[in-house]
């Protein structure tokens, strides 16, 4: 009896986690996918009209704001990719110099502990045209400096990108630093003996060695961009007009403002598809790495 009990206990202990996975993840995802094919509005409606099952998606892609959201997604992803580059440069410099490493790491990382809402509000204040940075630049002599990015539809996204780079480059620095430290230090002595310039060592040896870290960073960044919501709310609340909407903002808005479950579900399904597309390379590369490691052991 005791033996049987000991086998049952772990299964029992796993029930909450399995239940959460089945209900809150699997069930919920399937429900949302199902809803995206219905004509549900404020309340869920479970009938699917076979002639019009793709109606919500048709409406979605006919919607100019959705197109803007998808464009902004790409702009935001490309723009914030700078955070990875900055993160790598900072990590390389810190790792190379090693003086005051602790202080620099603390300063570069603290934005990560600040919520995106606060980050957005703070940058919104800095972008204030009459009292913020622009005014400061005018006063010290740059009369034509324009830093009122958030007020113009063409530049508002850049304001958001600047704030997200500020918030996240420390995070990529930490990941890169961890990657750099795991590199065998004999490379450095070898390079020093050969008299190779240190930046060439980085470009030609270190970066290729760290390609997996770079890929991880890129995937994390893309997933973060797909989820971009808080920072949009805090900095522009989608404006001016609808110029800074993102798919995440669109889906929440379709549910809470337009009260349209079917439409919001369709937007969420597209978000899931985008996530899967980003996510797939990670699985492939991880599997490849594991196989290579096993091959090396065998």
């Amino acid at each position, binding site marked *: 009896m005791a033996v049987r009990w000991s086998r049952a206990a772990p299964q029992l202990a796993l029930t909450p986690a399995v239940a959460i996975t089945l209900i809150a993840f699997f069930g919920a995802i399937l429900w949302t996918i199902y809803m995206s094919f219905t004509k549900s509005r404020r309340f869920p409606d479970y009938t699917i009209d076979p002639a019009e099952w793709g109606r919500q998606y048709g409406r979605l892609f006919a919607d100019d704001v959705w197109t803007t959201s998808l464009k902004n997604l790409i702009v935001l992803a490309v723009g914030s990719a700078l955070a990875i580059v900055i993160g790598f440069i900072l990590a390389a410099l810190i790792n190379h110099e090693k003086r005051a490493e602790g202080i620099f790491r603390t300063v570069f990382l603290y934005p990560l502990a600040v919520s995106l809402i606060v980050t957005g509000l703070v940058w919104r204040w800095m972008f204030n045209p009459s009292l913020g940075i622009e005014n400061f630049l005018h006063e010290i002599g740059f009369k034509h400096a324009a830093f009122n990015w958030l007020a113009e539809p063409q530049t508002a996204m850049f304001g958001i990108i600047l704030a997200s780079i500020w918030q996240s480059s420390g*995070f990529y620095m930490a990941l890169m630093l961890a990657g750099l430290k795991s590199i065998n230090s004999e490379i450095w002595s070898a390079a020093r003996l050969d008299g190779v310039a240190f930046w060439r060592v980085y470009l030609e040896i270190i970066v290729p060695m760290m390609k997996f870290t770079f890929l991880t960073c890129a995937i994390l960044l893309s997933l973060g961009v797909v989820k971009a919501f808080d920072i949009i*709310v805090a900095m522009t609340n989608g404006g001016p007009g609808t110029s800074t909407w993102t798919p995440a903002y669109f889906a929440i808005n379709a549910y809470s403002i337009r009260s349209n479950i079917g439409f919001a579900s369709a937007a969420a399904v597209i978000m899931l598809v985008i996530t899967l597309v980003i996510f797939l390379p990670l699985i492939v590369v991880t599997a490849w790495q594991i196989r290579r490691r096993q091959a090396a052991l065998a």
Partner: protein
Amino acid sequence: MTATIARDEGGAAAALPFAYPRRKRRIKGSSIAILVFLSMCAAFMAIPLYVVIVTSFKTMQQITLGEIFSLPTTWTLEPWSKAWNGLCTGLECNGIKTGFFTSVKILFPSLFLSLGISSVTGYALALWNVRWAGSFMFILFMCAFVPFQIIMIPLIILVSGVGIYGTVWAIAVVHAILSMPLLTLIFRNFYKDIPRELMSAAMMDSGSFWRVYLEIILPMSGNIMVVVLILMITSVWNDYLIGLTFGGFGAQPMTLILANSVITSRGEIIYNVDMAAALLTAVPPLVVYFALGRFFVQGITAGAIKG
């Protein structure tokens, strides 16, 4: 997977300084250039914090002069007390303190729930022979990446069905659900390194799943608990979206009150009060960060997929 790799690299980072002591040498020109460059980057990172702190102590009179970087001519605490007691959202002016207490009420149950579920699950997956452990972990790994929007509406319906929508419990439960996959993987990666001999000795001794957990595993988990705790405290405290979608009007966490009052405010904007409110919201995670920085770094690299 990602969590594993990040943790292994973190381990290497901690071990390295002892293995390779740096040779002493004179400061070279290139070193000075690097330090100057790094200091400039540090200044860029620090400027927003500086501006917020300075603004929150200024009088509105001085703020309207427009010198964003100057120190306050007269330091005043009035914006802080106004932010705490009298910040307005819509028609109500109850200050940000209501949000603070709501956030605290959300924080504790969500920490308790998420740490409880995920540490037990991680322990079962790592140290007990569960046949489908591998595939379950892969599924958890996938779940950790799922965008919130795709599960939001059914969860709202479920939570309303249970009758807790619009309470702190709804927000706490949703936090626990959303963090479960990632935290389980972190715990599992930690527990799997526990030596086999120790486990078999423990099995000989009592053999009970729960007794081994309570008497041996839990006392060994101090480090990982702190890391996960920090990860959860910052993510729950800084959350906006879950509070927005599950809090209704009854349970608005601090970030929500802050955003509502600053974004939707009509009429004259009182910048110093806004900035004081923003700082008050940011203080708890910042204190955690500056007090426990080392664990914080481990937490975010382990929880990399959460960012």
